[in-house]
């Protein structure tokens, strides 16, 4: 199985290298769908320039990346293209290994249940054969590496790719059952973009399941393990934040990164839902509505945790989708990460109604984004409503696809 993976990686790297050399690279990196104010490479370069001048990179209102990223690129700026290609490959390999491991677990469980004769007779079609499962990890890697969204995000050098790598490693560590590494990567992911904090719940559920600890509020071992994991997570978070403090010797980055994510001051159009509402809204209502919008990301975690207690990996997937839909500065790179998981639940496709229409809707929306952008910004003949209409359609497509998937798995 390693050979096809290597082949896929080679194809993906060649494609990216070719695109870096082409004239498309400049065009793609300017696209608002690919580069958000948070992850645009231009802003990273600006931050680096300020850092080199001995000024705090956060002193301008341009740079919103975390201190660790800027120090990473402080040393690797010459090899930026290489770094982004490597992070993409690492993400794909991590996802590959994680799904391979997960499939083994699923298969074992399925075998046990068959032996115990617990399945109803008419679900025979849903039982997965080893042949099917054999190819799923490869498909996941393929979906991630060759997804046009990922390719564009890599070519635009959007730092979203790095967030994706951290999250992929977090998933790998969780599925391998290493509570320590899982907590560390979760802390890193949270530190990077804040929203992955909601992945705490699925990770905890998965680890508990793996340790065969019953999820009951009365059981002592449940609370003990939860405390342990939370402590590990918080400690690593504190360590990382303190490290950032010592790197820059100031707390500037807290308002500049997390304040920026939460209060959404930059209303550049993107594929998310925030910009249009807040551009239209009166200033004195905006605090309330920022809270309402932000709650969306965190709000669904608890009901989902109750409902999907038995399927923590699926929960993780749904949570990733929710983050990428409702976060304040979404890009197509975020969408690409959760899309990579689609093959894992391919056996559910037959229950997914309208999946074909919804996929077509997403494809057509992706094509219409640049067209309407051109009409609005360059030709001046359309206006922001046209672009926002497509953004809404795109997100409705995503939401209804994911709710269908959630229904079918319940």
């Amino acid at each position, binding site marked *: 199985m390693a050979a096809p993976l290597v082949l896929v990686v080679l194809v993906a790297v060649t494609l990216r290298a070719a695109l870096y050399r082409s004239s498309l690279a400049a065009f793609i990196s300017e696209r608002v769908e690919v580069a958000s104010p948070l992850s645009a490479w231009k802003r990273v370069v600006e931050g680096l320039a300020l850092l080199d001048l001995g000024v705090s990179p956060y002193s301008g209102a341009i740079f919103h990346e975390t201190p660790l990223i800027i120090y990473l690129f402080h040393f690797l700026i010459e090899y930026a293209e290489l770094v982004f290609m490597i992070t993409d490959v690492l993400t794909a390999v991590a996802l590959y290994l994680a799904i391979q491991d997960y499939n083994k677990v699923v298969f074992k469980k399925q075998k046990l249940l068959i032996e115990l004769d617990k399945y109803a007779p008419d679900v025979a*079609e849903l039982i997965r054969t080893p042949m099917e499962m054999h190819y799923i990890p490869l498909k996941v890697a393929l979906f991630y590496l060759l997804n046009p969204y990922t390719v564009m995000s890599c070519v635009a050098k959007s730092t979203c790719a790095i967030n994706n790598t951290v999250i992929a490693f977090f998933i790998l560590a969780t599925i391998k059952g290493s509570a320590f590494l899982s907590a560390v990567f979760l802390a890193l992911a949270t530190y990077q973009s804040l929203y992955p904090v909601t992945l705490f719940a699925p990770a905890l559920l998965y680890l508990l399941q793996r340790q065969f600890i019953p999820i009951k509020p009365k059981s002592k071992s449940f609370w003990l393990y939860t405390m342990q994991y939370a402590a590990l997570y918080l400690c690593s978070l504190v360590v990382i934040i303190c490290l950032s403090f010592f790197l820059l010797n100031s707390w500037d980055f807290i308002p500049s990164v997390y304040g920026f994510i939460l209060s959404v001051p930059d209303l550049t159009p993107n594929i998310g839902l925030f910009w249009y509402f807040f551009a239209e809204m009166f200033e004195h209502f905006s605090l309330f509505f920022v809270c309402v919008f932000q709650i969306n990301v965190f709000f669904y975690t608890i009901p989902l945790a109750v409902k999907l207690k038995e399927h923590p990996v699926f929960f993780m997937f749904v949570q990733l989708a929710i983050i990428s839909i409702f976060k304040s500065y979404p890009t197509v790179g975020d969408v690409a990460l959760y899309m990579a998981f689609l093959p894992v639940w391919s*056996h559910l*496709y*037959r*229950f997914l*109604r*309208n999946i*074909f*229409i919804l996929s*077509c809707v997403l*494809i*057509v929306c992706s*094509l*219409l984004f640049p*067209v*309407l952008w*051109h*009409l609005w910004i*360059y*030709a*001046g*003949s*359309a206006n922001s409503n046209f672009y926002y209409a497509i953004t809404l359609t795109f997100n409705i497509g995503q939401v*209804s696809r994911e709710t269908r998937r959630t229904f079918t798995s319940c």
Partner: protein
Amino acid sequence: MGLLSDPHCRRALSRLVVRLNTPLCVLSYVAGLGWFLAMALPPLAPRTYMSENAMGSTMVEEQFPHGERALAYARDFAAQKKKAGGIPVAWLEKTMWGLGLEVYKQPFARTLPFPDESRERYMVKGTNVYGILRAPRAASTESLVLSVPCSEGTQNSQAVGLMLALAAYFRGQIYWAKDIIFLVNEHDLLGMEAWLEAYHDVNVTEMQSSGTLGRAGAIQAAVALELSSDVVTSFDVAVEGLNGQLPNLDLVNLFHAFCQKNGLLCTIQGKLQRSDWDTLPAYAHSLQTLLLMVLKQGSGRPQGDHGLFLRYHIEAITVRGINSFRQYKYDMTTVGKTLEGMFRKLNNLLERLHQSYFFYLLPSLSRFVSIGVYMPAFGFLILVLVLKISLLGGGPRPGPRGLHALDLWMQLNKCEAASAERLWDGDQGAAHAVAEEPRPGLLALVPPLLVCHAAGLALYLLPVLGQRVATQHFPVSEAEAVVLTLIAIYVAGMALPHSAHRALPGGGSDRGWMTLKLLALLYLAAQLSCAALLNFSLGFLLAATMVPAAAAVRPTGPRLVLAALLVLSTPAVTLLLGIFLHRELEERPAGLAEGWQLFLQALAEGLLQHHLYGALPFPFLALLTYPCWLLLWNVLCWK
């Protein structure tokens, strides 16, 4: 989605769509065309009105007195031009200085990718001359442009004369709040492109020019004037710009309003509007005007010098003075007054023109069809593809059949429905046989896709790159070589190996072509929708011709008829028919030989427009529509 989620509704709907697919498709197509034809009727085309307050409510009194002076300038200019054998730069500079303008000149040069035979030019060198009238009441932050092309021969010298006379008169007025640029551009669109690029300090084509020296703030609006006689009988206005972009409707309204005020006859597409609206001839007349506009907009070619302004977000129109054998003639003073009025109203603008429509079609100058009204016509045509897609949908998905009866998109597939029936009959053996039948994965579609797109790429690149080789080996000129290579590649694409799909196992089955057709239809629907947003006419014309063939194509049945239908729907034939229709509508029908010559000219023109000004129809057709059409051709040739 509620309708589609409820299994009963879903089943009923799917049955309806399957049973009545062909009638529904035909109905939808007819509805689309019918809607389009109905757009020339008054209820769908309301009267135009001025939306911009700054131009609507204020009155201006025109006092332009210098009609005779304009003619004197025109005669001088014609004499000087004859003497200089081109644009008389020195004379223009001197005259403009004399009028009190800031004068600049801008030399430019451009080598065409191949010789332009219809205009006889290859290595072009020219000079633009322009004078800026500084506004006494503002700080040069905004400006208006009056541009006049200096074309070959004695053409257009009256326009230069009128422009100079207007400049002389405007100079004496105190109410200007925007700078006015008086521009004489050489080599029509080439000079205009050079000037616009230099003015905005960009270089989007390979134009070489010295940067302009003087600027006058952001240009708010522009009027290009063409006038070749001492008196005019009517004015024609051209609105279609590069890639079918249109100026704000208020600018057209402004022109119309002033023509009416001064009693001038004005036409659009060379058609005078009729006073009656409810008779059949009147309907036919406005339909002709509408069709002409659709054809011109669909060609993506600028219909006047104003066409290039639109790309820079500047509203612009071209105004042409026509001198025909009508009784009432208007002298330069009236014409000057009309232009003066327009400029004074534009001078009153507080912000860019943005109130009125940008997406419209004009069945006459006083009526318009807005985007909300014309989009349904296109929507009905696309609905045909969607209905067909829903019939084929779900084809590519693998997996056992059993529960598919629930899924609309699966059930609609005929062979799957058959296998599902067998499952319901309890015939397990048959079901297994179906399940093990080799399935064309998406991999089987890769070779046809690649081959078709390679053909498209060749069509896009080879004609210009290969002109040297072609002229060395064949006794043709370069321009002919380009056009003939284009046609040769286009036709050769149809003969490409159409059995590429058979290289992979399972590619040759029935499901194979259905999958390919599904893909081609999706591709067509997506690209036509994008095209219709950018240039409605292009999208509509392509949809009207390609949709029936695309919906009907299949490798079984009357293949000859289908092949003929498909060939008739190819973009090249659409272009040819478009040329005949255009000449027919202009009431000077072209014979077969003339039509063919015009077709060759149009091909060369399309290529040149793309290379010189960045027009998009050629790359769109070569890189997207042609490959998509080849995919359909592939479906037809499927074995």
